[in-house]
C-alpha cells in the first residue's frame, strides 16, 4: 500500500435520476473524502449520466472511495482513470484586462494556445480555452500579468484512451 496522497480522476456512470448527485456529494462529505472538481452531464443514453470527479488520497482512501461509490444503488460503474492513459480536458473562460497596447500580444497568446476571444469589451477580452491541466496552467501563467478580472472553470472531464492495437 502506498501512503502517499495522489490525485485521481474518477469517472462514474450513474442512473440519470434526481438525487443522485446529492448521494455522491453526500458520500464524499459524510466520509471526509475530498472533491477537487466535479462535472456531470447526461451520456448518449438519456437514462444514464457521467460524473467526473477529481479527488486526492492515498491508496487506501482511493480504494474506499471507489468501493463506497460502487455501493451506492444508483452507481452503475466506477472507473479510476488515473491508473491508465486518459484524456483530461477543462474549459476555461477568462476575462483579462486588454489595454490597446496589450491587445496584439494577448491575441498572439490566444493563437498559440488555440484559444479564442469570445467577447470584447472596451477594456477587456474574454477568452475561451480548452485543454488539459498543464495547458490551462501555462495559459493562465501567461495571461496573469495582464490582469485577470474573472475566471470560470468547468473542472475536469475525462475519457480513457482507446486501446492501442499492436
Amino acid at each position, binding site marked *: 500500500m502506498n501512503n502517499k496522497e495522489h490525485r485521481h480522476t474518477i469517472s462514474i456512470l450513474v442512473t440519470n435520476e434526481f438525487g443522485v448527485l446529492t448521494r455522491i456529494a453526500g458520500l464524499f462529505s459524510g466520509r471526509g473524502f475530498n472533491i477537487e472538481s466535479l462535472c456531470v452531464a447526461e451520456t448518449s443514453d438519456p437514462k444514464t449520466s457521467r460524473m467526473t470527479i477529481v479527488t486526492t488520497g492515498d491508496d487506501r482512501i482511493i480504494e474506499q472511495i471507489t*468501493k463506497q461509490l460502487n455501493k451506492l444503488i444508483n452507481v452503475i460503474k466506477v472507473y479510476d482513470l488515473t491508473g491508465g492513459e486518459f484524456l483530461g480536458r477543462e474549459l476555461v473562460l477568462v476575462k483579462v484586462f486588454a489595454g490597446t497596447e496589450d491587445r496584439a500580444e494577448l491575441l498572439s497568446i490566444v493563437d498559440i494556445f488555440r484559444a479564442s476571444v469570445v467577447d470584447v469589451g472596451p477594456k477587456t477580452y474574454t477568452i475561451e480555452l480548452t485543454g488539459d491541466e498543464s495547458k490551462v496552467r501555462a495559459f493562465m501563467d501567461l495571461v496573469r500579468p495582464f490582469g485577470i478580472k474573472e475566471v470560470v472553470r468547468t473542472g475536469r472531464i475525462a475519457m480513457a484512451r482507446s486501446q492501442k492495437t499492436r
Partner: protein
Amino acid sequence: MAKQIKKKTNKKKNMLNGAEIVLAAFEKEGVDTIFGYPGGAVLPLYDALYDSPLKHILVRHEQGAVHMADGYARANGRPGVVVVTSGPGATNTVTGLATAYMDSIPMVVITGQVPTALIGNDAFQEADIVGITRPCTKHNYLVKDVRDLAGIIKEAFYIATTGRPGPVLIDLPKDVQTAVTEFVYPDKVELTSYHPTYKGNPRQIGKAVDMILASKRPLIYAGGGVISSDAAKQLKTFAEKLSIPVTTTLMGLGGFPGTHPLFLGMLGMHGTYAANMAVTHTDCLIAVGSRFDDRVTGKIDEFAAEAKIIHIDIDPTSISKNVSVDVPIVGDVSGVLTNMQKALPKTTTSYKKTLKPWVDDIAKWNKVHTLKATQDMKKRIRPQYVVDRLYKLTKGDAIITTEVGQNQMWAAQFFKYDKPRTFLTSGGLGTMGYGMPAAIGAQVAYPNKTVIDIAGDGSIQMNIQELATAVEYKLPIKIAILNNRFLGMVRQWQELFFDKRYSSTCLGKKPDFVKLIEAYGGVGLRAEKPADVDKVIKQALKINDRPVIMDFIVDPKECVYPMVPAGQPLSKMLLV
C-alpha cells in the same frame, strides 16, 4: 367526473389506488405485521389498512415503531415494516433507521409525505425525509407517480434483504396514495447498478484454506454477518473440523454457541482476557462477517499484529477499510464457509495436533482472568449476578435485548447465547432506548418465547412510552432494570479517566419503576437484596399476559471489566 371514472375503473380487476397497492405489495412480500403510527399524510394508507388482514401494531412514538420492526427483523430474519406520517412522524424514525443501518438490519419504512404539488413549499408537516435519511438508509425513494409504486416497493424489499442488508425508506406523497392505476407486481427486480456478490472467489478460498493450514495459532473472529447470513451452523462445523478457537464481536454473539469449548467469549473493549490475548498472539486471523470496528480493535496498529488476515464479508467496503487484509474474500459468509469446508483435507487430525501449544496458551489465559458473577449475599446486589441468574433461571432459553451501556456489556458477558438471533442489541450506533421496543418486536415475532430486555435505569426511560404498546397487545416482555441510579457507563469513564468528576451522570432514585409500570397496566417487581433476585425473576417468568418490570436495585459502584481504554491495544486490559 373524475370521481365517476375512479369508481368505474376501480371495478375493473387490479385497479388499485396507491394505498391499496402498498398493502397488496406487502402481502406479496409475505409481510404479516406493520409497526406504525397514523397522521395526516398517511390517512389514505390507514384507511386501506382498516379492511386489511395485516396486523398493525400501534406504537406510542415513531422511534419505537422502527426499533420494534428492527427487533422483529433481528429475531426472525425477515424484514421489519414501518408506516408513519410525514414531517415529525418521519423525522422521528431517523434514530431507528441509523440504528438498523449500522447493524445491517433489513427493514422497509414508509413515510407519508405532503401532496406532490406542495413538496418544497414548506407545507404543514413537510420534511425532506429523503434528504434527511440519505446517509442512514441503504437506499431511499420519493414516489412521484403511482405507476412506479409497485416496482419501487419490490425494489425496496429486494435491496433491504439482499447483499449486506439494511433499511430502505419510501416517501409516499398523499396524492400518490389516492391516485389509481393497475396493480402489477413485478416477479423480479432488475437493477443495472446493484449486484451483490454472493459466491466467494474459489482461488481466494483456496488461498485462505492454505493459509489456515499453514498457521499454528489460528483464530476465528466472527461478527454480525454470521447471523445475517444464517451461517451459524457452517461456522460451527468449520471451527470444529479444525479445532480453531472462536471469538465473536458483540453483534456476533449467538453466531457461535456461547457454551462451546472452542468459544473464548467476546473480544474488544470489554472482551474476555483470553479472547483479547488470543487475537494479540494469533498468526492467522479469520474475520468472518465482521468489520474491524474501533470498539473491537482498540489501537489499530497493534491489533492482530502478528497475524495474516483472512477477511470474509459480503460488503467490499468493509474489506481493507481499517486494516490491511492478506486474503480478502467478498461473498456471503455461509456459502464461503461451506466452500472452505469442502476445500479442507479429509483428515485434519494431524493439523489439530499442531495446535496443541496454542490450545495450551489459551487455557492458560483463561485461568488468568475469568468473568465472575459471584455475589456476597450480605452485600448489595451485583448487576453481573442478576444477569447470571436470568441466564440460569431461563436455562438460556430466551431472547435477550439490551439497552446501551453497562447493562449491554453485562448482558453480553454473563448470558451465554447458544443460538443466533437470541441477542438483540444496538451494536454500531449504540442507541439508548432500543431494548424495550426491540423486545416488543421480538415478542410479536415469537409470541411464546421468553423475551427479556436487560436495561439500565437511564436507557429504559428513552422509550418508556412503549410500555403502553406492550400492555395494549398483551405482550409479556420482561424488563430487567439494573438500577444503579446513574448513567453507569459514562459514570465509569468519569471514574477512570476524568478524576471521578461525575458531571451530569447521577439520575437519582426516580422514577419509581414499579408504580410506573403499574400505571401503564403492567406488573412491577423489585429486588433490593441479593436474596430477592431469584424470587423476582421466577415470579416475572410466570407472567404471560402483560409486560413486567423487574427493578433490581444494584450496587452503583460496579464497573464493567475487563476494559481496554479507548485507543489502547487489546493487550492493555484493566482487569480488576
